């Protein structure tokens, strides 16, 4: 199966993994790429150029296939410009195939010098956006593709709150570069539907947590399978950074802090990216925010990345051929 995305990246399936703090490590990244998709190595888990470069080399030892490195340029997450530069240098030197960029677009970081350097190095650049305006900007400044992130996604959906069914086709209408759908994507019917809406591929993150190759406490996988689509909530509008997280004790505390006008400093200790070991390593699901999407409701079992991707594509192919034969 070919889409403009698989052609551009030289991958078998139009399925990519999104950045995930404390989860998107080399092992999972390589497993997804080996299975025919595009894995993700999330840079914010590394503190400097050398440690990120070492992680990239680790992925390369596990797979000869392309993969994403995620860099999220957000002032709120406490990473300074020098560290971002170090990430970009590592990505360029290690000849990474593609990047998933979130937050500030690259042309607005250090006068766009790294946008040019990354492009010159042949790194394919994808920006994750929640609005058509941001998608058009990414196209204009030279990105190779965009990830259209619907409000149903986990992590940090844009506070315009536009859902995948509207955002993806609207983006496709306006852009020439390929659009990847994120938000709500979980199975073969998601992939088939996203392709119908005009996307060239899908991005999943939450779904990949429930694979054997994700290094995470088993309680997390069990909890995501147990909990339903209606058990996430949006938070963070009072601090200027909206997020979606699993309903648990921590998010209840955050909502309470927000309600009485408490600020970022009070909320930060609850964010899983900063205090995540209790959740991801020890499996105590009430010790921080768990950033998962509504697609959680569609996850029913733990499988390997290869089984997952093969099954998704097989299901999508069956669905499309069944449906089209009726016309």
């Amino acid at each position, binding site marked *: *199966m*070919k*889409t403009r995305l*698989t052609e551009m990246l030289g991958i*078998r*399936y139009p399925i990519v993994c999104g950045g995930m703090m404390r989860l998107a490590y080399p092992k999972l990244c390589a497993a997804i790429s080996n299975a025919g998709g595009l894995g993700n190595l999330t840079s914010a888990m590394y503190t400097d150029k050398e440690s990120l470069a070492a992680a990239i080399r680790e992925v390369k030892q596990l797979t000869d296939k392309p993969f994403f490195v995620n860099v999220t340029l957000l002032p709120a997450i406490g990473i300074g410009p020098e560290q971002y530069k170090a990430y970009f240098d590592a990505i360029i030197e290690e000849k990474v195939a593609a990047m998933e960029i979130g937050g500030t677009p690259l042309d607005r970081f250090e006068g766009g010098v790294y946008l040019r350097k990354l492009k010159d190095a042949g790194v394919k650049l994808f920006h994750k956006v929640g*609005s*058509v305006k941001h998608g058009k900007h990414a196209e204009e400044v030279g990105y190779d593709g965009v990830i259209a992130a*619907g*409000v*149903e996604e986990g992590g940090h959906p844009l506070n*315009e*709150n*536009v*859902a*995948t*069914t*509207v*955002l993806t*086709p*609207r983006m496709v*209408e306006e852009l020439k570069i390929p659009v990847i759908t994120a*938000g*709500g*994507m*979980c*199975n073969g*019917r*998601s992939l*088939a*539907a*996203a*392709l*119908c*809406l*005009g996307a060239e591929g899908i991005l999943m993150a939450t779904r990949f947590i429930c694979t054997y190759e994700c290094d995470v406490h088993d309680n997390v996988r069990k909890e995501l399978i147990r909990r*339903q*689509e*209606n058990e996430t909530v*949006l938070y963070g509008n009072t601090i200027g950074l909206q997020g979606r997280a699993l309903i648990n004790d921590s998010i209840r505390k955050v909502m309470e802090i927000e309600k009485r006008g408490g600020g970022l400093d009070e909320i930060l200790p609850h964010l899983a990216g900063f205090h995540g070991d209790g959740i991801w390593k020890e499996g105590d699901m009430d010790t921080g925010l768990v950033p998962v999407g*509504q*697609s959680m*409701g*569609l996850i029913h079992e733990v499988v390997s990345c290869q089984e997952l991707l*093969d099954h998704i*594509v*097989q299901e*999508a*192919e069956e*669905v*499309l*051929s069944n*449906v*089209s*034969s*009726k*016309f």
Partner: protein
Amino acid sequence: MSFFKTRITELFGIKYPIIQGGMAAGFVSTAELAAAVGNAGGIGFMCAIQWIQDVPKLEDEIKKIKDMTDKPFGINVTLFTEIPMSWFDSVFELIAKHKVPAIETSARSPEPFLAKIKALGVPWIHKVARIRDGVKAGKLGADALTVIGSEEGGHPGAERNATSVVGPLLVDMVDVPVAIGGGFCDGRGLAAVLAMGGEAVYMGTRFCASKECVIHPKVKQAILDMNYNETDYILMAIGDPVRALRNQRTQKILEIEQKEGAEGTMKFMSGLLGEGFGIGGVTAMNTGDIEQGIIPVGMVGGRIREIKPVKQIIDDIVAEADAVLNKLAARKYLKA
């Protein structure tokens, strides 16, 4: 274009898997619209509560639509708790008397009405926003279900679940066929619904921006002018959220919800009742007051650029879905 069949087209005896849902903020889903949808090969539902103050007018409307089409149409019975049972009984009587071909229920569990609905002996579709409500209605014996995501206009449910998730999920959870709504206006939408496992696309806003819909031209123009990120999700404070076009009124309501909570919001909304808000009768949808009225539209209003006759809307959707699906089916994922 060949004939397209799903369990929902079979159930209603229609040509295309396209449903015009009942809409009742003022006079919206009237005979003009539902007849046009039926004549074009889909099925349209007229909301009975549009005529709640005057049941004989509902009977006139049923007679009127029968003069306008010999194709199937339906009545939506919105099961609001504040409506007395006597009114529901009179509506069910009219449905039986005039052999209305289909019924859509919505707003709450159909359980208290089950015997009366079943006695009508016509195809029955029940609309939900929550998965558990859908599962329950399926068990109660609804012939089909509609599930809508929070991107839809009107009453998208308090859980804020998106169509991309609740669509395929309800399909997994029930045996009866499922129509999917919220976010759709075109052939890509119909194709995506079928890909999710849905058996009909359910639309409201797209049909508001049709030549036949009786709403005020200013409202139709406002749909063409709006962007997809220009709706507000109001009245969550009182547990009955509505998605509507962002305007002075919705911004004011959001402000009151934030400052004064449920009690203040309820008081403010009660104060508006005399001004064309509430159940039944003319509203801003009909007067065209797009700044001070509540204009329920979905996010998908931002993708609608032309007021078209209903037949053209439906023909375009079917042609586009056909093209999209055939193009995609020609690609082979595994054999590449």
